[in-house]
């Protein structure tokens, strides 16, 4: 089973595999820079666990679990 972006622990890197969404939702994630092959780092989680901040191609962007769970990734470790 491929993990999704919301499962990546803070401080860890992951590689985007696939976006499990369609239409405008998918396009939005792609526009944020989450295209397959992109390295993403989870940089911080808010106290309640949602949203989480990710470093995506040089910009730190916060995503909700709902959005991050649509992003299939492979773990890269620290």
């Amino acid at each position, binding site marked *: 089973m491929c993990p999704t972006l919301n499962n990546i622990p803070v401080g860890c890197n992951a590689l985007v595999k696939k976006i499990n969404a369609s239409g*405008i939702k998918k*396009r939005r994630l792609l526009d944020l820079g989450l295209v397959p092959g992109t390295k993403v780092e989870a940089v911080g989680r808010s106290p309640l666990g949602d949203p989480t901040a990710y470093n995506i191609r*040089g*910009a730190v962007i916060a995503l909700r679990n709902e959005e991050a769970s649509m992003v299939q990734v492979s773990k890269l470790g620290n």
Partner: protein
Amino acid sequence: MGLTYQSTGTAAFREEAFNFSADDKQPVIALAGNPNTGKSTLFNLLTGLRQHTGNWPGKTVLQSKGSFIHQGIKYTVVDLPGTYSLLANSIEEQVARDFICFAKPDVTVVVVDATCLERNLNFVLQVMEITNKVVVCVNLIDEARRKKIQVHTDKLRKMLGVPVASTAANIGEGIPKLLDLVSKVVFDKLKPKPVQIKYDKEIEEAVSKLEPKVIEALGSELNSRWVALRLLEGDTTLIQSLENYYGKQHLQTLQEVLA
């Protein structure tokens, strides 16, 4: 909406829909780009104003307007909200898109961050799909130098097909060159030829079927290819904006096609 584009023409249309005052016959420059690329720094440098970056009240672009004089010609500059895309997922994106699309600035300067070009170029492509009149401003070049990043502006210009200038707006570096390119594009001395993105065969076929209908409904005012692509994507916010700016009657044929 009482006035529509067809009944008034660009200047009056801009005035009504985007709060431009009537005596604005001067060229309009829009600054667009990702958040934190220095659009407002550039804006402040050009206009001498101290516009605060950030919040955007609703749909108005009134607050972000300023002007400057370059070689005896007065230009109006509009500082658009920073967005990662032009697909109108949020109010900011819609403001930016509607302005580029409907207010038709004489030049859209896309400000990009030299230190992470890769993430910025997606936005450049989106703007280039809407309008030909694009100048790319590779900003934060001083920051890039510090990080030992070299930007080959000449290569970038050839690949994109639009003029490219590198600047450091915080210290004023590269601004004369940028303004030179901007004025050349405004007065058609330089005609950018943005690369056009080719999509899959299926999409291209659908576009070629839809495009004539778009032209039929809207005339050549808008980039028909772009409108067709958005319609295929099922972008409802664009239909709404089209209704707002052009009036419902022009869209009936389009609605029929889509139905």
